[in-house]
């Protein structure tokens, strides 16, 4: 009872704090637990970009941005708690960086009228804006990723992978299971054999899966892993001497943290990506000047320029641009979550705009629309150079096979609409 009273007093105190004019971006981060290696750089990048905007430009449209961090530990229950505790503070957009939490929040954000951006994760069929009014997953989703990986295999095999054996090593959760449907369709279309190997949370134990790979000798291995699972998988692949250039991860399995533990043996490992790599962009000079040198960098400040830091930065950039669009549409500098949703739906990212922001060629140029919340779905392949300790793009940003993906998106989103009695919006 005492505890309850104390919490009551405390939350009353917090609720009573005066609301200042600011744009609130909750960051449901995870800096602890088995997925922290991925959560930390993303959260740092997300926070640093808003710090940069505040320091350099005085906020967005003259209003300061505020990043509200809440630790989820990748746990859905804590994710719910974080959502409830931050939504009352004027949250504009949620980016939970967890497919499990995304599934939980989709109905909640829709009921509360707050947009959610799940960049490259979450529920793939949310790309259908007619059904998922408040959920966005531009510029690319898992099914694009699966198709991009297969496209790469087609490229290196001269367009024919008939009869090849492809194994998918996946995190046994909603996240890992997402690409299976698409890969099955693609297997039918291109005539390759697909075998599925599930790895249970958190993924430290993969001996049996890799033993099976050693026995079945697939030509290629795809991986849908996250957190500690990635490093273990790459180490196991090294142990069975699986050729690294035939091992392709999704974008969540392609960061420095994943390949560094295996040392030189990880050389040649590939991953799909939907944004550029490295820190050779003008925006990083500004980050150095306004954020790092002033001592305002988030976290330990040692992640700048890593793959996942860049992804956090990119997510923040898209959120900031959507905010600008929303300010323009609504005519107010202090926007609401509903304005933000409209801004995200009208978002247009052009090459000129990205150059202006100091990120030329950082991601694709695209336009979001009422019906398409999924963006263009383009991506490239990056490869690890163990000697130089850096990722290099080895292909251009190419399209994915929307011929296969679009029907799947329509089917899955319509099934969701039917289950939940949602009438698809009219988008014309």
């Amino acid at each position, binding site marked *: 009872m005492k505890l309850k009273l104390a919490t009551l007093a405390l*939350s009353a105190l917090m609720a009573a704090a005066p609301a200042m004019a600011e744009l609130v971006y909750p960051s449901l981060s995870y800096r602890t637990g088995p997925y922290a290696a991925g959560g930390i750089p993303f959260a740092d990048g997300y926070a640093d970009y808003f710090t940069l905007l505040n320091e350099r430009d005085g906020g967005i449209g003259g209003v300061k941005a505020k990043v509200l961090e809440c630790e989820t530990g990748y746990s859905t229950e804590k994710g*719910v*708690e974080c959502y409830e*505790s931050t939504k*009352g503070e004027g949250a504009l957009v949620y980016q939970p960086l967890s497919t499990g939490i995304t599934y939980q929040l989709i109905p909640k954000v829709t009921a509360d009228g707050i947009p959610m951006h799940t960049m490259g994760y979450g529920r793939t069929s949310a790309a259908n804006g007619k059904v998922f009014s408040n959920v966005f997953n531009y510029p690319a989703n898992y099914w694009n990723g699966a198709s991009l990986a297969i496209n790469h295999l087609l490229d290196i095999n001269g367009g024919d992978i008939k009869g090849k054996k492809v194994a998918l090593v996946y995190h046994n959760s*909603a996240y890992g299971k997402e690409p299976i449907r698409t890969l099955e369709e693609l297997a039918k279309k291109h005539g390759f054999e697909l075998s599925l190997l599930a790895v249970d949370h958190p993924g430290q134990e993969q001996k049996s899966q890799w033993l099976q790979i050693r026995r079945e000798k697939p030509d290629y291995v795809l991986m849908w892993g996250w957190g500690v699972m990635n490093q273990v998988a790459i180490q196991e692949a090294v142990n069975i001497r699986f050729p690294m250039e035939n091992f392709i991860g999704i974008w969540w399995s392609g960061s420095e943290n994943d390949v560094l533990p295996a040392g030189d043996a990880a050389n040649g490992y590939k991953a799909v990506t939907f944004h550029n790599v490295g820190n050779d962009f003008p925006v990083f000079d500004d980050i150095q000047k306004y954020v790092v040198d002033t001592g305002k960098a988030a976290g330990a400040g040692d992640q700048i320029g890593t793959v996942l830091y860049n992804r956090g930065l990119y997510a923040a950039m898209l959120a900031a641009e959507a905010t600008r669009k929303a300010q323009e549409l609504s005519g107010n500098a202090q926007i609401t979550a509903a304005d933000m949703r409209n801004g995200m739906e009208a978002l247009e990212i052009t090459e000129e705009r990205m150059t202006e922001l100091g990120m030329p060629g950082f991601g694709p140029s695209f336009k979001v629309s009422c019906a398409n919340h999924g963006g263009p779905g383009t991506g490239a392949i990056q490869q690890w150079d163990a000697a130089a300790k850096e990722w290099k793009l080895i292909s251009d940003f190419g399209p994915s096979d929307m011929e296969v993906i679009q029907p799947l998106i329509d089917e899955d989103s319509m099934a969701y609409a039917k289950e939940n009695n949602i009438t698809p919006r009219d988008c014309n």
Partner: protein
Amino acid sequence: MLYREAGDFKTSYAEDNQTFPIKFDRYAYYLLLVAAFGVVPFFINDYWANAVLVPFLIYAIATIGLNILIGYCGQLSLGTGGFMAVGAFASYKLMTAFPEVSIIVHILLAGGITALVGMAFGLPSLRIKGFYLAVATLAAQFFLVWLFNRVPWFYNYSASGQISAPERSVFGINVTGPNVDAWAQYMVCLVFVFASAWLARNLTRGTMGRSWMAIRDMDIAAEIIGVNPLKAKLTAFAVSSFFIGIAGALLFTVYLGAAEVGEAFGIQKSFLVLFMVIIGGLGSIFGSFAGAAFMVLLPVLLKNVLVGGMNWPTDVAAHFQFVIVGALIIAFLILEPHGLAQLWRVAKEKLRLWPFPH
């Protein structure tokens, strides 16, 4: 002074045997009920329901369930997470297969199904005891999670293996799905908690509870005086699993709304509920509530104090939370191995005599 028995005369056996024989206790209990049913629903908001009260109430049911098994019958179980998953998946299958039937019925049926599964996994308890039984129930935990991940029928062949609760209502008021009001969520859980606690309290005071306790204290002696171990142990597993199943069903339908078996009902859930039982106090209904409150509220409180009040970085606060909760658990186990319930009992004894020391 305030808390005393003097002048509180009992004239019948029923009065003498009631749950709260002391007037002051009884009135406090009535007051709590009035507050819980009549006051809180009018003031509750989304944050309080979702972050604090609903999880507390749901874990209280699970803790009562596990406390019957461990605290009253002495059968150590590590399968709680798996049994909660049975409740969740049973309620999901029932909700989607029979949408016209009330959700309350589905939750009760989910409890019943879990009771059957619990009895099946309780069978080894007739042969093995203590740590060995813990290992057998641990197998149940892993088997059940594996099963719900492996067989697509359980999650209606959805692509991601996630289950999500469709919208259902009680008396025309939504209790599941996104458009649910905080008070409705809270009331559903509260009704289940009240009924479970009342049922559990009365079961443990009756013949069944006595036979459980006889088995717990010394099973051979109990058998000699005529307690049937098969019946006692299996009823304990059934009743315990029934409550745990209800808790799992509520956790999925009312609280989370969507669940993934490995994440929501993994081994860490089994340990969490076990800690609640141990910290709250073995063999006590009040202890079940105290333990659940301790494990659910303390992290939220610490988070609010450290991050909200003192502006610490979230990761440092999260790590400190482990340190503080861990240290408190160790301190409790050393200073008061019988848990919060015993602490409360001692406090009551002291209060009865206060202000006179003897």
